[in-house]
């Protein structure tokens, strides 16, 4: 169980953790489809690059974002003693 005075720094870290995961992801979500038409001229693994990024790219980045977030946030929990090992 977390100590009372640890709550504030824990929440501050959690907020930054959330923002650093969320903001780049949202930017990518908007940028990839918008430029898909122009990127389609390039090829990657045989896919037109625009299509690859809007489909595979976003899915892969979503998976990576979630995995990294889960691990980082767990490390944060341990750092502040907010983990549930009791």
């Amino acid at each position, binding site marked *: 169980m977390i100590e009372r005075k640890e709550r504030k720094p824990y929440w501050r870290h959690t907020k930054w953790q959330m923002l650093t995961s969320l903001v780049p992801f949202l930017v990518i979500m908007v940028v990839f489809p918008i430029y898909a038409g122009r990127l389609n001229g390039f090829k990657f693994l045989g896919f*037109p690059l625009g299509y690859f990024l809007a489909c*595979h790219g976003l899915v892969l980045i979503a998976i990576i974002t979630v995995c990294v977030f889960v691990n980082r946030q767990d490390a944060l929990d341990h750092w502040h003693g907010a983990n549930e090992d009791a």
Partner: protein
Amino acid sequence: MPTRARSQRVNPLLGVYFGIFAASLAGLVILLMIFEQLGVVDSRLRSVMTLGSLALYAAIGVTAYTKLPHDFLLSGRRVPSFYVGLGLAVSALGGTGLVAFTGILFLAGFDGLCLPVGLVTGFVISVLLIAPFLRKFGAPSLPTFLCLRFESNLVRLVAASVVVVPLLLLVVAELRIAQMSIVWLLGLSDGLAVLMAATIVAVTLAAGGTRSLTWSSAAQALTALTTVLLPAAIVAVLMTNLPIPQLSHGPILKSLVRLEEVQAIPVGFADRLAFDLPGQQAQAIVGRYATPFATVGPLAYVLAMLGMMLGLAGSPSLLARSSATSSVYEARKSIGWAVFLSGVVVLTMSAQAVFTRDVLVSQIAGSPTSSLPSGLRALVDMGWAEIVSRAPTLSATGVAFKRDAVLQSLPVLLGFPSSLVNLIVVGVLAAALATAAGSLNQMATILGEDVLGGPVAEPHEPGRRLLVDRGMIAVVAAVGALVAAISSRDPLDLMLWSLAYSAALFPVIMLAIWWKRTSALGALAGLAAGCAVTTLGLLLGAAGLFPLAAPLVPAIGAPAALVATLVVTRLSPNPKRHILEMVRDIRVPGGEPIYDRELRLARQQRQRRT
């Protein structure tokens, strides 16, 4: 990696059980294929496969019987994250998503991506902003969470009435898909098929509520995943020599792009806010596969994706599911599994669509109309495709395909044994039942706990409480079946409407956690404004008086809810001190779930009074 001691142990043989289930499923399929080659009638094989799998789901549901409210409402909070993730991934897309998104991708190409990819990204928002905190809170339903967070029974009732709308829409959409699958598999009449689907869902749920839901939908999700991934892998081996269609359909797409240029398939240009994806009736392909924005404008594409994202993140039935995990960390991990599994399914859909288009463009186009290729002839005979052009030779745009049958069409086009086609439809049925059961269970919980059990926050004694909840499952199943039997609306539309409503819930849930000051009045205003604006947008859109299509309605509904909550909260007095303290507690993992604590305090108070 940290190791965790679980306070409540889960059955250590669970993996073995589900391994046996998956193996017997694979065995059944191979057995039926052998019987098919031996010449047993197809319809008999179909009924064995359908009834066998349905009986299995119901059996799992019934054996998960429980007398404890803790198990009935929260699955005992001890489900391993993988099984929760399985259920989440399949019910995010649902049977509707499996068939409709594949069809849309095939017919409209790139533009169809915004819906399924948007749904997958919803899990990212969910894990960052909502799901772990709701697990810490530990409430069995969304209105209960809002009621305790804002200490207001009015919020509970208003939230209950707003949350029921997307849940009912989703139940109806999935029952319709289940109905179509059952009609095709067993040859029943429409009404009977809906009745059968709803009965199976109710029987599966009634014994153990959320506990039954968790385990039966894990089995259904396994069935659905196998049946989506397996045929695609077989086709991929034939076409690309690699059994990973998700990554290996690139070269096929490359040659497809070239062929489409050679055949001069027209390229469309959509207006910025246009949104015109294929509907339920048979339709020829639109535009070239990899060329963006032929039917959906660029702005509409991004808005639809963000709308799907918020809709998934605010979806009441999915949020309730990750509360069944054993800790906050496990809840986060369950979303990790969900985003991985649903991502794989979406990439498989993309592969299926590309393979089907390749068959259409390279093998069907150019053959004479008088003697159709055998695969296409079979498809036309089944009613899944129509020849629309009168030209002597077929062109790629001369064949119309039924959107909801494209997923099953590929094995037919390639002349595979019909067991494989049956298998896919059984998988779609499983996904539809899993999603319908999830929403139905949450709806029954809301009606039983929040509407009938409320407005007081002190539940009845366990026996009566479970009787009410079980009764509500029957009632909701009956209502769902009735509406599904009457409605003739495209299931995808219903699903998109449901997502539009849950996107309007998202801001209120998010602010309840991330903004301590959010007041009960603000939440009420947010819920009401979101629901009202969404309803208005959807109704006017359906009547043609409003330019925004259903997937774009969240773009006005969610901001309306957000602004209303912010403004009214600013105008209302600060919340009391103990509420601020509770919100601080929601944000930190560990310790007693807040729902349990509140119930305990309420019980103590009652005892002190008597």
